[in-house]
């Protein structure tokens, strides 16, 4: 299951996004074309304000493009009705946010089982599956802790487990290490890579964390609302070598 395939799972075609900021129009994306293969680990890099998060939100169906289309498994998501879109978010895509976004009043386990409830699992099935996922992210002992009783890294692990709740085919991570220290951030990246390898889940991550480069199959660089260039891992290895003075 490991490694990227040649099957396209996400296709972005001519996507533009224009925001109305008061009287000024801001063009956050100026026509982006991108294809992501199933099983791939892709990082979207770029400085803040480059349109990176905007592109990320479009891919996840969290926001609508002004122009252009986004296809997930060859389905144009603009054509989906509210029920289909909810189904897509529930079953096909897992989301991870910079700010974790756990539901504050629910325990770790309840956070993980909520999407399963939406998907129609019974309470027992959801509890067992949720416990398994929390074990997998190393939080088996903290099932009944509330988010505020967990450290940032642990909260993000719960969020990863929650994102995997309904065995999605795509995992979208928006700056998943942005609020974490170096070591904890690395752990989260490794966890994502592990899921990518073991479960074959496609990972698309918006980031400006250089640690992400190591694990990415491809890195898309966004600048001023357009794709600057796309590097494969082989090309990156050389580049990292020249920057850091080592190929590690």
């Amino acid at each position, binding site marked *: 299951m490991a490694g990227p395939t040649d099957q396209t799972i996400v296709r972005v075609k001519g996507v533009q996004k224009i925001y109305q900021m008061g009287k000024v129009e801001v063009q956050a994306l100026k026509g982006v074309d991108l294809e992501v293969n199933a099983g791939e680990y892709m990082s979207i890099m770029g400085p803040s304000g480059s349109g990176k998060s905007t592109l990320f*939100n479009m891919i996840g169906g969290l926001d609508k493009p002004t122009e252009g289309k986004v296809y997930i498994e060859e389905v144009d998501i603009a054509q989906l009705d509210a029920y289909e879109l*909810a*189904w897509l*978010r529930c*079953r*096909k895509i897992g*989301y991870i946010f910079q700010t974790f976004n756990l539901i504050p*009043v629910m325990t770790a386990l309840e956070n993980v089982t909520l999407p399963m409830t939406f998907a*129609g699992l019974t309470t027992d*099935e959801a509890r067992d599956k949720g416990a398994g996922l929390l074990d997998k992210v190393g939080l088996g002992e903290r099932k009944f802790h509330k988010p505020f009783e967990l450290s940032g890294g642990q909260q993000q692990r719960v969020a990863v487990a929650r994102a995997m709740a309904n065995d999605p085919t795509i995992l979208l991570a928006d700056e998943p290490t942005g609020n974490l220290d170096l070591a904890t951030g690395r752990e989260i990246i490794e966890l994502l890579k592990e899921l990518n390898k073991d479960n074959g889940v496609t990972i698309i991550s918006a980031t400006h964390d250089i640690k992400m480069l190591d694990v990415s199959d491809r890195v898309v660089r966004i600048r001023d609302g357009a794709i600057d260039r796309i590097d494969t891992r082989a090309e990156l290895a050389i580049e990292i070598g020249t920057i850091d003075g080592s190929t590690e």
Partner: protein
Amino acid sequence: MSAYEPAAAGKIQKQIVLPWSRAVEIAAKSIKIRFWRSMITMGGVVLAIAFLMSIWTGNTFVKALAFAKDPGTDVLLQRNGIDPDEVRADPGLSERDKWLVSLSLLVCVVGIVNAMLMSVAERFREIGTMKCLGALDSFIVKIFFLESTFTGTVGTLLGVAIGFLLTLARASISYKGAVFANFPFAGVAMAVLLSFAVGTTLSIFAAIWPARSAARMEPVDAMQVRE
């Protein structure tokens, strides 16, 4: 057996569920964990309804006493600055009473709507997150409906009780036993019903309306709303 089936590749389906039992559980937990926050929201409802209830009940008492047409009671009324003949001549609401009732209704609307709006606005991020997890707009409305029904109903009942008891206590000091001798059961029952209707309706609508508009936003917009 659950309705869960593995997602077939490439096929978009529709079925997403939130059973009422789970919604009740989520709403109850949400109130319990934010206990003090919920109490403050509820406090807004209690105060507004207590005010409305005391104005209505006070009115009812005065009218009942005036129509008792007892010279002793008339003296008591006059001592409290009320002309019993005037009340008898015009049994509807006086200008002053109309003003007070409108004012208390206004307090209710502003007080309750404000309390409920605030309690929903601070949870926009949560609503956006739930949408990302696959919640339908109706799930959000369901949860907030249950929460506001509970806070609204309990708050209204408390407000009705407090408003009534305070007015009764005040009237029994001013008019002594005459209040109990001429107790206007029908009038009080009417005031209870009206206050209850106003309190619960306002609470539920004032919570559902912002929750629904938050649920209808694109999830990313709901999550970006600053709390």
